[in-house]
C-alpha cells in the first residue's frame, strides 16, 4: 500500500507537481498496480542473473574522429528562452 507521504516523496524525486486530488488518486492506482507486480516476489530468483540487454553485443566501438556538431543557433532555435547564445532559466532561488 502506497501512502500519501510516499507519493509526495516520489513526486519530488521526479520533479512532478501533483494536485491534491492527483496525490490521492495516484496513491490508490500505484497501490493497485504494485499489488499485481508483487506476485513476482513469490518466484525463486536467487541464482538468476538480471537481464538489462537482450541482444548479446561486444563493445561497439568507432574511430574517435572529430565531426562537426550542430550550429549553436540551430539548437537554440527550439529553446523556450534562449539568451546570449545560451539556455536561460529562472534563478535557482526565488527572491
Amino acid at each position, binding site marked *: 500500500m*502506497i501512502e500519501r507521504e*510516499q*507519493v509526495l*516523496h*516520489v*513526486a519530488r*524525486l*521526479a*520533479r*512532478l*507537481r*501533483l*494536485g491534491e486530488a*492527483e496525490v490521492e488518486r*495516484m496513491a490508490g*492506482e*500505484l497501490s*493497485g*498496480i*504494485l499489488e*499485481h*507486480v*508483487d*506476485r*513476482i*516476489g513469490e*518466484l525463486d*530468483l536467487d541464482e*538468476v*542473473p*538480471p*537481464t*538489462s*540487454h*537482450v*541482444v548479446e*553485443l561486444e563493445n*561497439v566501438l*568507432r574511430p574517435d574522429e572529430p565531426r562537426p556538431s*550542430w550550429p549553436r543557433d*540551430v*539548437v537554440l*532555435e*527550439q*529553446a*523556450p*528562452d534562449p539568451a546570449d547564445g545560451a*539556455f536561460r*532559466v*529562472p*534563478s*535557482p*532561488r*526565488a*527572491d
Partner: protein
Amino acid sequence: MSELLELTVAQAVARIAAGDISRAEYFETWREAAGGDDLNAYLWRAEDGVGEVEGPLAGIPVAVKDIFCTEGVETTAASRILEGYRPPYTATAVRRLAEAGAGVLGKTNMDEFAMGSSNENSAFGPVRNPWDRERVPGGSSGGSAAVVGGGLAPCAIGTDTGGSIRQPASLCGIVGLKPTYGAISRYGMIAFASSLDQCGPLTRDVTDAALLLAALQGRDPCDSTSVGIEGGVAAPSREDLAGLRFAVPAELGHDAIEPGVRAVFEATLKRIEGLGGEIAEVPLPHAEHGISAYYVIAPAEASSNLARYDGVRYGTRAEAGDVIEMYETTRAEGFGEEVKRRIMLGTYALSSGYYDAYYGRAQKVRTKIAEDYAAAFAEFDFVVTPTSPSVAFRLGEKTDDPLAMYMNDFFTVPMSLAGIPAISIPAGLAEPEGGGPQLPVGFQIAAAAFAEQRLLNAAYALEQAIGFEARPGDGDG
C-alpha cells in the same frame, strides 16, 4: 474510390516501376485520401509529393508515427510538453525509407510517449477505430494502425515497446510486425523504454511488411545497439507449413480470452495443421509474469528517459519563480495522466530501498522469460497466441482502471521482454463481448531472435490460406 487505393505497396511499386502510374499521381491520390481523415489519426499531413529517389519503395507514401523525429516538421509524441517542437534532424528509420524512394505522407496520432494500449492517452484526442468509431484502434501506434486499416495510407511505421505495433494492428485488421530488438535503428525515435523500444511496419499484408522491413533494417552508427538482420529480408514465399512446429503456451490463460477471439484462434490452429504444420503445447511458465516485469522495467526506463523534458532546451515551459518550480510546473502541465503515472511508478521502483525488490527482480524475471523462449525454440519453430485477449473495446471502457488497460498487453509483452520478433496477422472476425458488429481478430506468431525471414514466410503461407478480405464498413449494409 480510386483503384490505386486498392493496391498493396508491392503492387504499387511494380506499377510505378513499369510506368503504368506516375509517382506524382499515386502520391496525390493518397494525399487526398489522407485528407479525408475522420478518425483523428493524423497529426500532420504532407503537402509535397514524393521525390525522385530510385529504390525498392520508389514513389510509396508512408504514414509515420509522431514519435519519429522529422527535420523541420513538428514532432510531439502526442504530448503537450513537445508542442511546437521541430527537430533539427530526421530519425534513421525515416531516412532509410526516403533512401529507398518512399515519402512521408503524414505523422500519426499515438498514445503520449507511446504509453497506452488504446490511443486514449494522446494530448490531441483519441483515434477512432475504422471498423467502429465508438471503439479504440488500440495503441500506442493507434494512428498508424487506423490509417492503414481505414484506407488513409498504404502503409505505416510505428514503435512497439510491449505490443504497441501488434495490438493496434490486431484491433484494426492489418499486419503489424515487431522485429528483433536491434534490427532497426532507434536513432531519432523518441525514447520510452530504451531496452524494449523497436520500430516496425504496419501494413495490409505480410509481403508489404517484408518490403518495409527490408528498407528499415540495418546497423546504424548512431545507435550502437542496432545490428540489422544478417542477409537482409526478401519477399516472403512459402505455400505450406509442412515440417514446421508451432507451440501454443500451456499457460495461455484461456479464461481471460474473449470467446470470439478464442474461436478464431482455434480455427487458425486448425488451418496451420491443414497446411502441414504441427501444433503442440509448450510450457512458458514465466510468460504470465510478463505484465508484472514489464510494468516495472518500462516505467523505470521511462522515468529516466523523460527526465530530459524539463523546459530548458526544447518543448514547452511553464512560467515560475525559481528553477525547481519551473521544472515541476512544466512537467505537471506538459505530461498527461498516464505518463505521470508511469514516471511515478518508475521513480518509485528505482528509488532507494525499493530497487532490488522491484527493478532488480523484474530484470531477473526477464531472464526467466527469455530462457523459457530459448527452451521452446530449441524444439519449435514458432510460438503462437492470440495477439490481444479481446477485439477492439469501447472508448472510455478501460480508462478508469490502469491495470485492466495493462492486461491488454498480456500476450505481446513477453516477446518484447525476450527481444524476439513477433507478427500479428488478421485471422478472422468475431463479435465483441456484449454483442455488436463483427471486428477483426489478430493471430500472433513469434520466432527466435533474427529469424524474421522464417517468420515472414510462415505468416505469408498462413495469410494466403486464411484469405482475410474483410474491410471496415462491410457489415454496415
